[in-house]
């Protein structure tokens, strides 16, 4: 079987070239990388972990780890893949710490129970005396965020990387240290669950989008 030639990431990826300058202790190159990735990292952690303050701390932890590892850096992948792999490790550590501290909430992610109470409450609070009123931007965002909270951590991570980083299944697999087949399954469950949670609200016209003709499922599948 013919082996695929290894891509030259230094030629392909400008962020790899910046990181190679960081390896040579170029402070301006490091600052440029921080500026390019900070918003994306903070957003990722915001929807993975919750809490903007912690998101910023975790994003800084990622940059610190990148800086400390600079002398050992070898461009074996796109820079973003490497960076998000570190972010994935940092997120896992934070989630493990959080699960040890977490008080039991109404909805437990691991149980797979739907956040229907939370979503219904949000929808009703927003609509008030006008049940047919569509939610505004902030309200829709909150409903989508609550729906995403119902996914398990791995489903949520894969979904965020796919949606907001535009990563291929292969890149996500490398980032999360899983096989491509596992990512394919993970993403289909994540998107299926998201669809199942939000569909009733789309049907009722609470969320934007044409109403469907079939009611969604009521059980979230938290298997990977």
């Amino acid at each position, binding site marked *: 079987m013919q082996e695929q030639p290894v891509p030259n990431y230094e030629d392909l990826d400008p962020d790899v070239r910046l990181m190679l300058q960081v390896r040579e202790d170029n402070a301006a190159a490091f600052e440029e990388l921080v500026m390019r990735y900070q918003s994306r990292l903070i957003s990722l952690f915001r929807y993975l972990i919750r809490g903007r303050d912690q998101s910023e701390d975790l994003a800084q932890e990622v940059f610190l780890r990148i800086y400390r590892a600079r002398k050992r850096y070898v461009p074996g992948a796109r820079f973003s893949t490497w960076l998000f792999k570190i972010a994935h490790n940092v997120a896992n550590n934070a989630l493990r710490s959080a699960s040890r501290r977490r008080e039991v909430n109404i909805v437990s992610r691991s149980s797979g129970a739907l956040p229907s109470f939370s979503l219904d409450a949000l929808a009703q609070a927003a609509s008030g005396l006008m049940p047919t009123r569509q939610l505004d931007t902030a309200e829709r965002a909150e409903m989508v965020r609550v729906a995403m909270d119902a996914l398990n951590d791995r489903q949520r991570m894969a979904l965020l990387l796919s949606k907001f980083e535009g990563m*291929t299944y292969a890149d996500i697999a490398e980032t999360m240290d899983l096989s491509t087949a596992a990512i394919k399954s993970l993403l289909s469950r994540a998107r299926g669950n998201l669809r199942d949670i939000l569909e009733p609200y789309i049907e009722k016209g609470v969320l934007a989008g044409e109403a469907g003709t079939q009611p969604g499922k009521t059980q979230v599948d938290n298997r990977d």
Partner: protein
Amino acid sequence: MKQEQPDYQDKQEHGFDEELVAYLDGELSQDNAARVEDALSENAEYRLRLKQLQQAWDLMDELPQSAMDESFTKSTVELVVVSAESEVMATVSRWKTWRIGVWAVSLAAVFVVAWGGSALVNSVSGRDNQQLLNDLPLVQEIDVYDPIDNMEFLRELDASGVFAEELGDEI
């Protein structure tokens, strides 16, 4: 004749979704994508499921993304500078400790060599001194004993303690 198509009711929903999601993500091979497109054209439920998956996906665009914050950049770079300084301090401290250690070992080695050498010298010279002390009585009276050619006679005089008595009178 209707072509054989994946049936929404019979197929495991997850496997079905997997195909559709991979199709939406552009992750299917050309052949598989064509197969899905054929199925979509033939099956209304398949099309509905695809639409619903796409709608939920599009709703994720409602999630606000963080804006770039210059103060965050600044504080991150400062954090890294502090970390780098700590690394340098730790390295210097380890080097100083190593250097002190090397000096201490060197000094100890010098003492050991000096003591050992001194002990060796004392040991050698001590034997020589002792020999000289033993020979002192003879040396003092060399002019008297010199004419005596007979060594055997001198040894008998020494064995009798004549020389030691004379040395004892001198000390």
